[in-house]
């Protein structure tokens, strides 16, 4: 069963997976484009090089987000188009079907992460690093993979939720924004949405993986 779900899901996701894999593979290599033999380089040149490599690495969380967003949406696209009638008429418990869809999507979300890990490894090997500077290809790839999976899981849950669930989610967001407007009108210095975002993006919030500094090379 899972194999067939995987085959069917691949048909809708293959283009996105291909493009995202290419992008994820290219970024770490771009980071070392201006690299070379830094072993004997002066502090200033190493600093410049680190700044350049860092700039490229800051795109990685966005790519991870894109991976999760696109694959999370595409996972359900076929069932959404048929208003879930086919899926619901199949003789499997709903939880099992959802798990299979999630598993297939998560597996595809791993491919760009793996590509990123591979190219990070290659990038690391191409640079002769000066003393005190270290490469973190495995850590970066792991972070990329976890960030993609987290976004994928959130989008998967929202896209696959019942209409009632989606209405509740939108209502909660709408209520938070309305409260912010009311606070603003009454001069209260408090924002519900800002607090919620801080909770989500600061450790141990689920989106904290996406924030902070992403670096392939660091001290």
């Amino acid at each position, binding site marked *: *069963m899972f*194999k*067939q*779900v995987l*085959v*069917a899901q691949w*048909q*809708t996701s293959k283009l996105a997976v291909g493009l995202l894999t290419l992008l994820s593979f290219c970024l770490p290599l771009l980071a070392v484009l201006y690299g070379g033999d830094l072993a004997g380089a002066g502090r200033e040149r190493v600093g410049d090089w680190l700044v350049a490599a860092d700039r490229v690495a800051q795109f990685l969380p966005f790519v991870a987000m894109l991976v999760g967003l696109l694959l999370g949406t595409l996972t359900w696209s*076929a069932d959404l*188009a*048929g*208003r879930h*009638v*086919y899926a*619901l*008429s*199949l*003789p*499997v*418990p709903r939880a099992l079907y959802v798990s299979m869809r999630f598993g297939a999507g998560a597996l595809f979300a791993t491919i760009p992460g793996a590509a990123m890990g591979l190219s990070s490894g290659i990038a690391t090997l191409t640079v002769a690093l000066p003393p005190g500077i270290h490469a973190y290809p495995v850590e970066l790839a792991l972070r990329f993979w976890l960030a993609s999976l987290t976004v994928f899981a959130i989008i998967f849950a929202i896209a696959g939720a019942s209409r009632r669930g989606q209405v509740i989610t939108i209502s909660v967001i709408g209520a938070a924004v309305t409260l912010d407007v009311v606070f603003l009108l009454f001069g209260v210095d408090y924002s519900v949405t800002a607090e919620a975002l801080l909770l989500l993006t600061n450790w141990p919030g689920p989106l904290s993986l996406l924030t902070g500094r992403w670096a392939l090379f660091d001290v």
Partner: protein
Amino acid sequence: MIAHAIETHELCYRPGPGFELRDVSLKVRQGAIYGFLGPNGAGKTTTIQLLLGLLRPQGGSISVLGRQVPRELPRILGATGYIPERPHLYPFLTVAQSIRFHGAFYRGFDWAYAEELRRGFDLRGEAKLARLSKGEMGKLHVLLVLAQRPELLVLDEPTDGLDPVVRRDVLSALLDFCSQGAATILISSHLVHELERICDWIGVLDRGRLVAELPMHAFKNGIKRIRLDHAPSLIGDTPFLLVSRQQTALDQLWVVRGWQPTMVQWFQGVGAEVKEIVDLDLEEGFVEMLRGARTPTS
């Protein structure tokens, strides 16, 4: 062995203002070919979706193949072939991929029979579903549900929009399958003449209410239009069921169900004169039944 393949008791569902399914109590005998008739918007698709657990009822109970919905849904669905009103298969798959996908979910899927049907229906395995014609898509749906070897087939307007040749192919494949075993078929349609040919029971749904449920022969033979002179204005107990009455310039037209020739005496007893008795075909009977259900008779 269970007596009824489908049994609902006072089923209620109200998706919103404007439509309500009220107290629908269906009984589909095991082995029957049950025609589920009703005009567009009567609630046939909603009832079918409730039977298969795609919607949750707000009242009443549902039993399919002797099991309760929704508690034993996976087992029910494993023994049920369902063709929905609108095609729902994944359009990006090929015919062969669709068969493999569908078959993987059914333990008793008959791969050899699926291949036989595919050849019989002249469907190319490598053809993408998005490129199939409406007729080919209809055939693929029939192929998939028949290869499941189901105990129950639930077909929601399976021939709607198909040309006569494809419609005949689809219906004969269904009838062939039925003649092989003891499958029960619930077939919903508004094409009355189509059901007349194949069904042995019919249920008529109108505006969310089940207005009749009876064997086909009783429906076809017992429904008459009677032209009357001096028809009584008030009706007490009648030996037949008055479906509708209509005043014309000269006389009254009654449509009755459960008619027997000896019942002419009843009219003589109430001082009415029977001028003409006309047999109605299923389509006319269906229309009159709906008219009767929508207007009070006395």
